[in-house]
């Protein structure tokens, strides 16, 4: 294992966050506050409770997921896309690093950043609502797993993208709609039966549902189904990245 190499990539990526520390931390704080103002106060005044939980508290897990998912994808995709764009990727490819070490360095840093941002959102949410976490360890486990999985997915997007437009296309056109339609701000039980069934095709639903269960023990699908779904997605991302690297896809050809 090239520990020094791994550390170099990790710290190099984390340094990007240090350089933009203010935006990195203030931006999730402001957006969380805005969500509480718009969804919690304006809409929450009309929807008082969902399954016995105040609307303000109900949306916290979904809100965290929304930000963590988009941040994980954006950090990891940019992390590997930028060296490709500036052609400094040659150094990573020429260094005695395995695919695993490269992925671990980039994805580890992106996931760490998302985890920090997720923590900022939880702390911010605590200012607006009375936050009670029923299963803190499971909540942390889900949070870490989500950060890692979607950082892997972002890394894959970064490998695939050969311009800035492609870098944005999946997060904007696929991920954001999936998060909004995945029960982040509502329970799918509030939807007509047909749309409930359609919602079950949305992988993000399982993620939000499992995460919400760790907070309030209420879920749209079982916790086990949520866990299996996210582990399946994580494995798919890992295998695709390993395949892409071994074939040199968009990097070595």
């Amino acid at each position, binding site marked *: 294992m090239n520990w020094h190499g791994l550390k170099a990539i990790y710290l190099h990526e984390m340094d990007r966050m240090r350089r933009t520390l203010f935006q990195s931390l203030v931006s999730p704080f402001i957006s969380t506050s805005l969500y509480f103002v718009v969804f919690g106060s304006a809409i929450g005044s009309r929807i008082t409770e969902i399954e016995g939980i105040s609307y303000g508290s109900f949306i916290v897990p979904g809100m965290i997921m929304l930000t963590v998912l988009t941040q994980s994808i954006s950090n990891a995709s940019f992390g590997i896309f930028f060296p490709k764009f500036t052609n400094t990727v040659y150094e990573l490819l020429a260094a*005695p690093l395995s695919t695993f070490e490269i992925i671990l360095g980039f994805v580890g840093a992106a996931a760490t950043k998302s985890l920090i941002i997720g923590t900022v959102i939880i702390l911010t949410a605590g200012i607006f609502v009375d936050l009670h976490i029923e299963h803190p360890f499971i909540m942390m486990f889900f949070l870490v797993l989500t950060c890692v999985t979607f950082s892997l997915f972002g890394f894959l997007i970064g490998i695939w993208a050969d311009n800035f437009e492609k870098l944005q296309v999946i997060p904007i056109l696929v991920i954001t709609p999936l998060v909004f339609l995945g029960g982040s701000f509502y329970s799918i039980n509030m939807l007509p039966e047909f749309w409930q069934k359609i919602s079950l095709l949305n992988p993000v639903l399982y993620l939000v549902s499992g995460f919400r269960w760790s907070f309030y023990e209420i879920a749209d699908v079982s916790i086990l189904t949520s866990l299996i779904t996210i582990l399946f997605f994580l494995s798919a991302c890992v295998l695709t990245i390993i395949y892409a690297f071994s074939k040199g896809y968009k990097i070595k*050809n």
Partner: protein
Amino acid sequence: MSEILKISNVSKVYNNKFQALNKLSLKIKKGEIFALLGPNGAGKSTLINTVCGILNFDEGSITVDELDIKTQYRKARSLIGIVPQELNLEAFETIWDNVNYSRGLYGKPPNHSYIEKLLKELSLWEKKDNKLRELSGGMKRRVLIAKALSHEPKVLFLDEPTASVDVELRKDMWEVVKRLKQEGVTIILTTHYIEEAEEIADRVGIINNGRIILVDEKESLIKKLGQKILKIELAETIDKIPSNLGIFNLEINSDKNILTYIYDTKGENTGITSLLSEIKALGMQLKDISTEQSSLESIFLNLVKESENELARS
């Protein structure tokens, strides 16, 4: 001298079906400076990038110090440093951070005194806290060299290192190269400046269409393949070359007073005696006679031309 790099029958076809390397074989001796010459698109950069692990290759094998670059890539790559052709650097990092980052990537623990020495040698120390985007092209080239040397490699690839750099930097760079050679580092460089290869290289390889056309000691190459040029300065100008001298394929300068005769030193008969006898018979008075050895550049151009003719015929 033992061989540190062995490339055997390596082929590389890009996704667009362009065959950049065609069963190419090459051996590089330990501690030598090897200049790889070739026209644009000949396969120089592809070869370097393939050895360094930046590009995959389709067939063949490559070993560095007896280590296979595919199966023993960790040890093999840690022996190699590369200075790429383009000035590819991050924008927002400082020189110090970026050079230390490179050392880390190669699995070496931090060694600030070595990096300090390196930066001082490359005249980068004063600017170590400057952001990379603030540097001039020449300074960026120095940073790339520092990055390539940050992990103390045994084999250094310099891909067109002096492209678009000023005279001072070029001089500094060759000083560094000479010092590295003294320390036992093997250097493989590609260059368009053939005079550089002539000045600094121990051996020269010529590549065209993804194949090595020729590899030889620089001096021996010039000696073996070189043609000589005989310059005959006349005491008086002439309007045109006399028809009696037609068989010698002479050329005349614009001042109409110097005849140029190109001859092959390897030939049984250089034709010099016959030429001078004809000139004497024509009653032409000579002012001076001199000879010049053909340069590596003319050898290189001739070989590339021959190889392209051969390819066209096949």
